[in-house]
């Protein structure tokens, strides 16, 4: 046994991030570690690599109990990590990055530049990187940088290499090179922990799989012995009737009019490719798929906040030219971003100012902001969305997550949108507020808005949406309509390979 984790737990204030998780890695094994957001993957990796200390349980490395106080400890012991974002020094040369901290020296103890350049060129050639190693790392493509990071990780006599979404920024050709390197490591008896959301990759390269959900181990076994559907259901994993949602079905008869949103051939390399769908007034269209499938990017691209290479976006029959957030809002598209704190609310402003934010030009009298007009609008939405705040003057940062989300929705609704783009509208809010938000989405659709809904909660997506467009790796791989809108069909569509 190369690396063994036995019953490890890790607590953070208010959250149990890992709950008695066990995990083993054999020499020469490529072990997939999968789970949705918040499942505990990152925490487990950080325990393995010495970033966190476990609160309970045991870590055994090469048969001995091990304790890594710092990431450096783990690295010295032979556990290397490659993170999603390359963490090297972009302003230093490729060769310097490769040898950082272990530069070859000549007999005077000075840096042996010539040898370093020579060796670096040789090593990197084995990783398919053919570049002048004297150039700054930052001048390389992201994929090549990832390879340098990998080469560096392996060069430090690693016995275990942890890869956290190594392919998320790679081109298909680079992915092939990476797989070649992984097979090589595999042959040399190095153990690899492989984290990715791309199922095709997992089945291609991994021998074993461990699935986490809500900080608990839900499955571990061989990759070949686990069906795709089963894998997806274990990841998303929610039995029917376990949770309730507050959605009601929209009768098909309501959904007649012309589409209020029509997205055609939307492409944004490398994340989105040829995405096409439409939303009719009164319809809730869900975007399904795993993390990294391109759901949030699609939402942002429609909202004008993500670059678009080609394709058209039509709102109510009018094509959005030169998309920008300003034009999208003006055309009647309101976007609720996934990250409420970073991109949604302005925590330091009051409830009133947050709600009125997007409609200030309409809230004026003789060119000056009129508090009277604002108060009227704010009062309407505070009572309609049942926003619980001490007063409209309370800072939004002091409200609960659910109420913050409602304030954000109030701001969007105040602009009088035709299309509402909701990215994880119920994430991080309590059950009561969740039900209210869900009911509100229904109500808004019933009033004739076109709604696009993204949710990692399969149940919520299926119950809330009249139709689900399923994405994988930035491509539409299926559309579920009518009776097909079930969690089973959703999982099946996500799991199917693009054969």
């Amino acid at each position, binding site marked *: 046994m190369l690396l063994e984790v036995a019953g490890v737990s890790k607590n953070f204030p208010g959250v149990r991030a890992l709950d008695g998780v066990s995990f083993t890695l054999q020499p020469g094994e490529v072990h997939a570690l999968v789970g949705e957001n918040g499942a505990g993957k990152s925490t487990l990796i950080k325990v393995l690599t010495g970033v966190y200390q476990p609160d309970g349980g045991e870590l055994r490395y090469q048969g001995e109990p091990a304790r890594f106080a710092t990431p450096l400890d783990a690295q010295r012991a032979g556990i290397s990590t490659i993170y999603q974002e390359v963490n090297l020094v972009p302003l230093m040369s490729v060769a310097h990055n490769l040898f950082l901290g272990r530069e070859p020296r000549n007999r005077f103890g000075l840096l042996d530049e010539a040898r370093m350049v020579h060796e670096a060129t040789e090593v990197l050639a084995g990783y398919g990187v053919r570049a002048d190693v004297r150039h700054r790392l930052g001048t390389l493509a992201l994929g090549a940088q990832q390879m340098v990071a990998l080469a560096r990780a392996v060069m430090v006599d690693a016995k275990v290499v942890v890869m956290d979404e190594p392919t998320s920024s790679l081109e298909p050709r680079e992915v092939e090179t990476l797989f070649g390197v992984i097979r090589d490591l595999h042959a040399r008896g190095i153990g690899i922990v492989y984290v990715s959301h791309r199922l095709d990759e997992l089945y291609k390269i991994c021998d074993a799989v461990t699935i986490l959900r809500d900080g608990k181990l839900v499955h571990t076994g061989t990759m070949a012995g686990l069906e795709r559907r089963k894998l997806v259901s274990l990841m998303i994993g929610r039995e029917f009737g376990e949770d309730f949602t507050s959605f009601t079905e929209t009768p098909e008869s309501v959904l007649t009019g012309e589409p209020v949103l029509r997205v055609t051939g939307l492409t944004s390399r490398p994340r989105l490719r040829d995405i096409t769908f439409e939303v009719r007034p009164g319809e809730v269209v869900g975007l399904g798929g795993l993390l990294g499938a391109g759901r949030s990017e699609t939402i942002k691209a429609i909202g004008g906040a993500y670059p678009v290479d080609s394709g058209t976006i039509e709102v109510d029959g009018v094509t959005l030219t030169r998309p920008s*957030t300003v034009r*999208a809002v003006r055309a009647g598209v309101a976007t609720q*971003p996934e990250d409420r704190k*970073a991109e949604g609310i302005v925590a*330091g*402003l009051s409830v009133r100012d947050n709600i009125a934010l997007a409609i200030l030009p309409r809230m004026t009298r003789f060119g000056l902001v009129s508090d009277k007009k604002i108060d009227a609008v704010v009062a309407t939405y505070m009572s309609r969305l049942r926003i619980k705040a001490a007063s409209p003057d309370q800072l939004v940062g002091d409200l609960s997550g659910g109420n913050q989300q409602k304030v954000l929705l109030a701001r969007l609704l105040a*602009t009088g949108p035709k299309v509402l783009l909701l990215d994880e509208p119920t994430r991080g809010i309590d059950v009561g507020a969740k039900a209210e938000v869900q009911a509100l989405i229904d109500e808004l659709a019933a009033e004739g808005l076109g709604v696009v809904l993204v949710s990692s909660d399969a149940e919520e997506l299926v119950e809330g949406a009249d139709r689900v467009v399923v994405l994988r790796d930035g491509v539409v791989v299926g559309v579920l309509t009518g009776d097909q809108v079930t969690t089973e069909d959703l999982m099946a569509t996500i799991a199917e390979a693009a054969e």
Partner: protein
Amino acid sequence: MTTEALRTGIDLSRLRKGLPRCGVYLAILLLIVYNIVFTPYFLTLSNLRIQLIQAAPVVIVALGMALVIGTEGIDLSVGSVMALAAALIPLYLGYGVVAAILASLAAGVAIGLINGILVAKVGLQPIVATLALFVGGRGLAVVISEGKLKDVRNEDFLYLGSGDFLRVPVLVWIAALLVLVVAFVVRRTVFGRRLLAVGGNRPAAELAGLPVKRVLIGVYVLCAVLASIAGLLSVSRIQSSDASAVGLLIELSAITAVVVGGTPLTGGRVRVLGTVAGALLMQLVVATMIKHDLPPSTTEMAQAVIILVAVYVARERRTR
């Protein structure tokens, strides 16, 4: 509610919350009381006049700085803008007072546009973008003035900086008027409200469809225009234009006034009156020290302590 609950419950928490907001006013009050008691001739009309006249340029520049800081930015070029405005005055006074003033205001608009475009469109960090004109602006001003100190003798123009209106210096009237205008802009205009949103959370403001770039450019223009007003008033007050001296190091005094006045460097909030009070406080500290014959080095150290205390108090509130 019992009186005890009132006392313990409200006094403490109010003091905590209120200190950063009112601390600067409290400090001014204390200094004034101290001066009335211990400093001879403090409470004379001529002394108060001098204090206000000396504080006025810093107040005007700090108003613009407060707006920029409200957007999570900073403007180092204000001193250079003052110099540029000052250099243009003697050049255009021949065409009349109005032409000279318009010329120096136009210089402010131009520099503000450059700063704003560098920050909003090019995406430079404010400190770097404005550093360029901090260096280059004064150089240009010295070139325009041919490196010479030029006396200004136009009576109408000198009235702005040296005259009285209703027994109060015109300079002070202008500063007070600008305070009202800026306070009004922040509180009552769409631009002012948007400015706070952009400073508070720029990605959110963008997603909400606000014209973020236009707001940012507008803020830098406003800041530079205020600085150019301060520049031309300085010329009017000292009755000569010296591009190499006007507004030297004023960016630091302005930033100090803003910070001491309780505007957080993290953006999203602008305290207009606090900024005025911050400028007055620093002026009073300097004056008090001078009156008591303390050397300038001591004054500088006292200023440093005040800045640290102000930042510390503000920090406490944020982590609350």
